[in-house]
């Protein structure tokens, strides 16, 4: 996975140490060194996590762009800062995942009559189940109830 090697080099060039990268992405220094040398390959999810951490972005056309050099904090600065940074990382990574899933790799619709497919009533039941789960989650997110999720996140 060449991008991950490049990504680690990119971070090191910007004065971020192996220890700081390891702490931020949850892998050991020796693992990062092996990835850097190419003697070992990260799993796909580890690679995507590391690229997201470095502020690299992938657009739906597969183009990679660099953001600003990331700020990797040392050990647990302020709980609130860490929580916000984690949330931001969530948002960025999820956006990447979903944009890719939705625009690039939306699974093909069912076209082959020989393949078994589910019926409309099962589909409705499945969808209702997910809506029920979303309703349960919404109780934990006050911003969603008032439609201010995006604004609230930005302000945070």
């Amino acid at each position, binding site marked *: *996975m*060449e*991008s991950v090697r*490049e990504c680690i080099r990119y971070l090191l060039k910007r004065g971020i140490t192996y220890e700081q990268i390891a702490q*931020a*992405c*949850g892998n050991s220094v020796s693992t990062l060194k092996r990835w850097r040398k190419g003697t070992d390959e990260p*799993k*796909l*999810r580890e690679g*995507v*996590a590391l690229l997201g951490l470095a502020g690299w972005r*992938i657009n739906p056309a*597969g*183009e*990679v*762009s*660099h953001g600003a050099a990331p700020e990797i904090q040392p*050990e647990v600065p302020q709980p609130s800062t*860490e*929580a916000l940074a*984690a*949330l931001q*990382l*969530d*948002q960025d*990574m*999820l956006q990447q*995942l*979903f944009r*890719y*899933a939705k625009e690039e*790799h*939306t*699974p*093909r*619709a*069912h076209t082959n009559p020989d*393949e*078994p*497919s*589910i019926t409309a009533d099962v*589909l409705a*039941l*499945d*969808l209702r189940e*997910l*809506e*029920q*789960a*979303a309703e*349960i*989650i*919404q*109780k*934990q*997110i006050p*911003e969603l109830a008032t439609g201010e*999720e995006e604004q609230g*996140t930005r302000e945070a």
Partner: protein
Amino acid sequence: MILPKDSAEEQSFAALLDRHDFSEWIEGICWAIGHCYRRSSWQGMHKILSCLHTLHLAVIDEPRRSLLDSCVAHCLLQVAEAELDHLSFTDCFDLCKLANQRLERKATRRMQFGLPYRPDTLRKVTLYTCLAKAKWLGPESLRDELMPPREIIIRYYDAERRVRDYLTAYPDKQHEQDTLETLAWCWLAVTKLAMRYLPEQVDDLLDYCEASHDNVAQKSSHPFHWDLHIARLYHRKKLTRADYERASARRRVTLRRLKGATYELQAYDDYAAREMGYMLRMQRLELQVVGES
């Protein structure tokens, strides 16, 4: 800065994206919800459910639908765990029921379509973990909700045997560690459940741990040891704030070593703060009832 078209990064990234197939995407979503859970991101979990909602309209054919169903069950159980961390026991059980229904419907549909049976053992192990944790700490009225404690323990042993047989037949070094960790968490939850409702089973479970899970219950360098220590004190009604704080600090340090990064512990920290207050309150209430009677 957009990199030039022929840059090494772009070429390798295009190759990376091409390697994605549907099952890898499903794996990515399962990983993403765990990531959001560990960081207590409700917005992230909500977004993932929205994404799954969209995917449902596009994926209606087998065998991909089965993969999606497993993923949905996994995500629902992860949200159930998050609810449990917030001590929302009823919501946790509601989500467990939805996940269980989804797995049952999937099995029925595969049978109707003449597809081979998929036991979904690891998803079920997660379900038992969640149920055991909720029944261990939650109100007694939920004791037999969805499945009684004895059934959970029997099913856990069965699932553990199945998974170990599978790993022996199909060794998979990449996933083996994650799988064994999932089983170990289930063992911990089931042992705590037994402490409350089936104390005669606890010794058997500890022996089983010694034989199958590297005897982590006895190792003070492992978080399970401290978790069980807290559970024991709680069930003997001898838990004090100082005891909890001391054991919880050791549990956190050992968990930090296990997980490798501090930021992975946010959900744990949130939970520990609530757990202490809840346990001390419940213990006080129970002691009051005993004193009055």
